[in-house]
């Protein structure tokens, strides 16, 4: 199938980059963004697969997006809370394991 496997490789690449960001970013928000990046990579994989295995992949993309939205809402709320209590968004400064 044209483009499918290329897209898959691309998604793997993006996922890897997301992981790298996940590990190397210090700013909570950007770490979060890295996570979103990984989700996007997965979505790409899903869509690519849906070319081969039928529509269900795209449906899953929806669910992923919905979950991402929910996660963003809650996660950002938490981040705001942390920022309020810690005056810092650096994960390495947030290590009391409690708010």
């Amino acid at each position, binding site marked *: *199938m044209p483009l*499918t*496997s290329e897209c898959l490789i691309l998604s793997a690449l993006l996922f890897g980059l997301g992981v790298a960001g996940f*590990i190397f970013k210090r700013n909570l928000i950007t770490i979060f963004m890295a996570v979103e990046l990984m989700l996007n990579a997965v979505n790409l994989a899903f869509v690519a697969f849906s070319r*081969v295995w039928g529509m269900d992949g795209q449906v899953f993309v929806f669910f992923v997006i919905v979950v991402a939205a929910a996660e963003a809402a809650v996660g950002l709320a938490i981040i705001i809370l942390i920022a309020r209590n810690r005056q810092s968004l650096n*994960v390495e400064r*947030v290590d009391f*394991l409690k708010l």
Partner: protein
Amino acid sequence: MLILRYLWIIPALPLLGAAINGLAGMFLPRWPNKAVSAVALGSTGLSFAAVLELVREFVHYAPYPLPWVRQYFTWIAAGDFRAGFDLQLDQLTIVMLLVVTGVGWLIHIYSTGYMAREGGYYRFFAYLNLFTFFMLVLVLAANFALLFVGWEGVGLCSYLLIGFWFLKRSASDAGKKAFIVNRIGDFGFMLGMFLLYRTFGSLDFRAVFGQASSLPAESFGQFGLLTVVCLLLFAGATGKSAQLPLYVWLPDAMEGPTPVSALIHAATMVTAGVYMVARSHTLFRLSPTALFVVAAAGAATALFSATIALVQNDIKRVLAYSTISQLGYMFLACGAGAFAAGIFHLMTHSFFKALLFLAAGSVIHALGGEQDMRKMGGLAGRVRWTWLTMLMATLAIAGAPGFSGFFSKDAILLAALGGAHGGVWLYAAGLFTALLTALYMFRLLFLTFHGQPRFDEHQAHVHESPGSMLAPLMILAVLSVAGGWMAAPEFWGGSSYFERFLAPVFGAAAEAAPASAEIQKFAAIAAGVALAGFLLAWAFYLWRPEAPRRLAGSLRAAYDLLLHKYFVDELYGAVVVRPLLWLSTNLFWKAVDSAGIDGAVNGVAASAAGLGDRVRRVHSGNTRSYAVWVVIGALAVIAVIFWPLLREALAPGAVTGMVR
């Protein structure tokens, strides 16, 4: 509409009443007593009316086949086991229905007067209606399972009502006692049911009895399956109907309000056992052993409790023991194979014993809560109506010729002697009991209403009860006088209608009826015995009031024995209760529960805590390190899941699988 088709209405009505009163009383702050009485009387009255209509239809349409079974919905369905909410109707049921709803209604009316000044008025009537519901279910049930529902339900209501004044320690204890003792019997009953299901693969009366009747009868002394079943069922009956050895709860049950004693512990619930035995007569007929046991137990109980009744001073306890002995009579009849006679006595007994209790209640009411007969006397003139009705009832129970008790007891005695499984000893016991019955009943009458007033005028200002209490008394009085003529043997000019009415159920008069000359002879004997009892009582308690004390003094031992009810309670306490307590305290509570279960739970928790305390050190709190761990984990998981693909890829000379 045909009640025949809608049998469920009859029990439904009281249930509705109970629901309304219970809920409204609980949740509406001001739910007036008038409303409570209206609902309670209305519901029971309506269901009584429904029963009357039912009788009319029964006679008019003659439903076929009998028993007339209606299946409403399936209650339990497990595998091939089915217990439906099926109601059935036949002559026996009709008799029971009439008794339950009719007498029940009268007692409801009475209660509105008697309980008027009590707290928890709505509670009382809710319970009472609930009881009526369960009793009706019990009577109408078409299978053992549903019958058991009613059986337990009435047990529950009796518990609730005995402990109605639950702030009174003795009352709540009595309630518990009743409940627990009944459980013992119920256990037998349940075992019986299981055995029945195992044998016949069903609990529906029709199926069970249908198959059973095809089995061969067992010989006397043979403990075959049927015998075992019957004995187990009878164990349940002894519990519910207070027979030896499980009678102990009934006397204490007198802690409840008097109407309760009248309705539950005299007229209806305690007769459930008799009903159940009669209902499953097919089984019992097939096992002479069981029949003999029933008869023997009945006779023994009758005699035994009658003797106790002789010396009791609490008016209600006397009646309680007399109830026990009368129930003994019924079982005696059933055991002798004269089920019709038993049921007949059940009915008449429900009339006059309810009457007795209600009258006693009226007396207690008049004396402002006094129950000790030694503090009564000379009330005859003061509460004339009560006295009159009480007299009627006493004559009836003592078996004065022409009164209902006479006929029913006569029938039983005849059966005991000449019945299919009768015997001279049974007859003798019955006869002697009759004597005692007359004696203690008249003792009660005399001590209460005649002789010198022994109560304190100043605190107890005697007054006749209100009309709402007297009306039921009179109706019941009429019934207990006239009720017997239904079964009067031919020579009394009666038509023996009752037996012929029940014939379809129990089969045409099983007991070979002796010649009428015989009958007259025995009737005469019975009457004579009753008279003797009356005379004795008169001699002791009116002619020479000091005689009893002397007698008691001369036979101190026997007297104490009787006064303390043969120390049965103490015996049970020593043999059953205390060991049980010890066991549950030391073994089950301290050893099993505290040490075993709690120990295990706490141990697990503690170990988890300890483990966490060690693992804690891994947590630096630096999220990035966690991130790394997460990634490692993900990598591992992926590698494990997709190992085949990976090996294929890592294999030498493997081209990365581009899809083309």
